[in-house]
């Protein structure tokens, strides 16, 4: 380590002649350890990308797209999984976003100040429950309870493509998985949007109230426009979580591999993560590479979505 690398505070430190050997060694060690840890983060993420790519190469090379004659196709295998993953996450978000915004507004603007932190803690508890317990709860308790709702939707709203088809009990369909996913992403979206709503400039809110606005008008004209970026970012973070969630889908959904829009039908969809988890025990060789390839697709998908979300947060951050 050359002297040029020594920290700026070294200038204020005693002259070199006064330094003991241990002192220098300690500084050098800490410098190396902390810079090394920072670099390790780079290396780890690079390793994730590299190992997933390396291990999925056999499947890519052996697939019909490249070899021309194999009995499986990467695209035919992956696309239904991507479709199922995206559809389940999209439905989960459609359910979760309005509810989360409601909760975030309730905690930040409606609930009594003394209660607010306790209520926030209740929502955080939802995030502390392990995903496998959600899967168990969803599979054993929730699915039978949802059956009347599905029958109702299918009977009276069957003309909407989403609710069409023939639902059969037990309702281990995409809709049930999405409901549980919605519960799981709810605390994330709530936590981020609550923080953003609380950062609304106090003076603007009071100005709106002083002009005679009702509480809702204040929220609509001041709080929501201010928090729009944060809410979008929160939803993207929730989407990232929903896309990668394994257990809720694995334990609830009866798998299938179609591009069906009928979310009430059983055995039509599957998600990437759940597919990996259910097939990995028996897979080896090319089958394993195929699974790792779908994992790589999922990794890239969530990477892009999270990066966009963080970019939105960072862009709207300093303004607040």
């Amino acid at each position: 380590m050359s002297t040029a690398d020594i920290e700026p505070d070294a200038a204020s430190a005693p002259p070199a002649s006064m330094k003991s050997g241990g002192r220098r060694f300690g500084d050098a060690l800490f410098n190396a350890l902390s810079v090394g840890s920072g670099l390790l983060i780079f290396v780890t993420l690079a390793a994730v990308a590299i190992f997933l790519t390396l291990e999925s190469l056999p499947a890519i090379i052996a697939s019909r797209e490249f070899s021309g004659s194999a009995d499986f196709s990467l695209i035919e295998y992956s696309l239904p999984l991507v479709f199922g993953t995206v559809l389940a996450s999209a439905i989960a978000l459609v359910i979760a976003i309005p509810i989360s915004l409601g909760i975030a507004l309730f905690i930040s603007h409606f609930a009594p100040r003394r209660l607010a932190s306790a209520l926030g803690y209740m929502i955080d508890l939802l995030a502390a429950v392990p995903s496998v317990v959600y899967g168990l709860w969803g599979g054993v308790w929730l699915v039978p309870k949802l059956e009347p709702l599905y029958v109702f939707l299918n009977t009276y709203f069957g003309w909407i493509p989403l609710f069409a088809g023939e639902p059969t009990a037990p309702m281990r369909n995409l809709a049930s998985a999405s409901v549980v996913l919605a519960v799981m992403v709810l605390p994330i979206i709530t936590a981020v949007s609550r923080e953003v709503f609380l950062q609304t400039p106090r003076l603007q809110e009071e100005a709106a109230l002083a002009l005679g606005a009702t509480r809702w008008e204040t929220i609509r004209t001041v709080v929501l426009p201010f928090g729009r970026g944060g809410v979008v970012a929160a939803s993207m973070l929730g989407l990232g979580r929903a896309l990668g969630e394994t257990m809720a889908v694995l334990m609830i959904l009866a798998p299938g591999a179609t591009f069906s829009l009928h979310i009430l039908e059983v055995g039509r969809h599957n998600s990437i993560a759940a597919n990996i988890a259910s097939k990995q025990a028996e897979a080896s060789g090319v089958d394993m590479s195929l699974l790792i390839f779908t994992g790589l697709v999922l990794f890239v998908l969530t990477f892009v979505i999270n990066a966009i979300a963080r970019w939105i947060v960072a862009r709207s951050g300093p303004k607040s």
Partner: protein
Amino acid sequence: MSTPTTVRTEPSVHRPRDERRLPWYHLVFTGIAGLLVAIAVLAIVGALSVTSAILLGFVLHLLFGWGYSLLREGPRWATDRLMTLLVIGAFAISMFPLLSLLWSVISRGLTRVIAARPTTFAFWTEDMSGIIGGADAGGVFHAIVGTLLITLWASIISIPVGLFTAIFLVEYANVGWKRTLGRGVTFLVDVMTGIPSIVAGLFGLAVFIAFMPDQSVRMGIMGAVALSLLMIPTVVRNSEEMLRLVPMDLREAAYALGVPKWLTIVKVVLRTAIAGLTTGITLAIARVIGETAPLLLTVGMVTSVNWNMFDGRMATLPTFINQQYRNGNANCMSDTVTNPINQEVYACAVSTNIDRAWAAAFTLIVIVMVLNIIARMISHYFSPKLSR
């Protein structure tokens, strides 16, 4: 449902005389009216149940409250009233899964844990070796050991790396190329936070099967590596936040006394932030201890205790829950089931697998909650009183 403050007027707001605000208890009246009408309608249709009554009652409450407010207060306040009700409703809906989940886990799980099979709490001291079919016995001792061991190793990997990364970000990444590196690290830590747990599992698997001759190798340390991928970003985030809270004055005072930088970090910065760091790390542990998907891929499942992280498969609580749930209802030919090898006789129960899954879920939630409570207590009692 309704809280008194929801319609309390701000004292500073000037109200025109023609917009009379109604007191909050009118909401209770419309609520009761909505509930009664809902019960009546449902009783006539023949679909009366607690859930349906509450749901329809809430919808009717929205309608009645809005209409009533529209007549008495005018459209602007009616919208305000409606939105207030909707927002409260959103919160109530979110409490519904939490309460029903906790109730299911406690009522079904605790029952199995304290059931005398063969003794109370034997569920926590026995493993699954020799348990076949619908035998109403067995326990999760092996899974508890596995969960604790794997989480311990994940912590051994993650805490130093995470802590030193946080120290790097706060203490070193201030100028020059380290600043650039620090920005990159911050971004990547954010990205790592979003890595799907199944991808972490695949990584743990891919790393080991790339170097091992045996493709079907599964062992505890693989799970620990996969979990640490998920744990490091949380440790970094939480620790960084805590280290930034340490006042600059303290560092400068130490430097002024000629204390070297590393000693300042150890004796001043880390010591001041120790309560917050412990809390953050405990929360990170609580987060990964319930992860299932990576362990499903990397450590497999066994029926007896395995203490060795570097050899053979291990059972963990989350994967145990998943396995028992997948087994589903057992098949009981008679009241008892006999193990053909050691001739032990157990009572047979159809729901034994699901019961064990609930009891393991109860165990897991107890561990997670205890960790959360410990974290809160540490931050509450031991945080330094910086502001006087």
